[in-house]
């Protein structure tokens, strides 16, 4: 099974997203107050920085190993379909987080429902693209 640069990049994004936000949610939950505290804020900043660093280093390593980084119309079509699938999850998440904001006190639940659905939307988008690459398009 030979993977294109784009597929390797997607696997890297999926693995780093699951690892970094898996770590974040395992530490940030359950809530110790109604609002997001300084501990969760600093943890979130660390998670975002770690995600960026891992992806930059990972993409550099993939680009060194695989010089063919060009993309074509099939890549664009697959990316569009993945983004569409992720959008449905994100739209559901926005609605769910607004509902959560109405029925809970503070901003902790709202923020974390929104963040969880954003992560889930990214995972759905990436997983869809990986599935389409394996199927053909």
């Amino acid at each position, binding site marked *: 099974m*030979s993977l*294109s640069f784009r597929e390797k990049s997607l696997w890297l994004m999926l693995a780093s997203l699951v690892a970094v936000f898996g770590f974040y949610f395992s530490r940030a939950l359950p809530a110790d107050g109604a609002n997001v505290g300084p501990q969760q804020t600093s943890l979130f900043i660390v998670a975002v920085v770690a995600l960026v660093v891992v992806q930059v280093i990972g993409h550099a390593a993939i680009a060194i190993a695989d010089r*063919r980084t*060009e*993309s*074509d*119309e*099939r*890549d664009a*079509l697959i990316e569009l379909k993945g983004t569409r699938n992720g959008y449905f999850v994100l739209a559901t998440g926005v609605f769910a987080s607004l509902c959560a904001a109405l029925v809970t006190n503070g901003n902790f639940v709202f923020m974390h429902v929104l963040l969880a659905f954003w992560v889930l939307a990214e995972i759905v988008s990436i997983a869809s693209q990986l599935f389409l*690459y394996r*199927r*053909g*398009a």
Partner: protein
Amino acid sequence: MGKKRGLLSNSIRPVRLQREMTQQELADRVGVTRQTINAIEGDKYSPSLEVAFEIARALGVPLDEIFRYGEK
């Protein structure tokens, strides 16, 4: 693009092999990735008209000798 799976078929692989050309060489001439050529040859992806014409030009045969629509 991509939809109506099975209606578009092609004979890229035999023509390409006749010309002793690899998927990567054809991909480079057409301006797509090797994986895309592989997907087109396997009837898993229907290319745009531009890419179809580029493939026919790269193989040096008319378009309707390479691609067929609605007949297997």
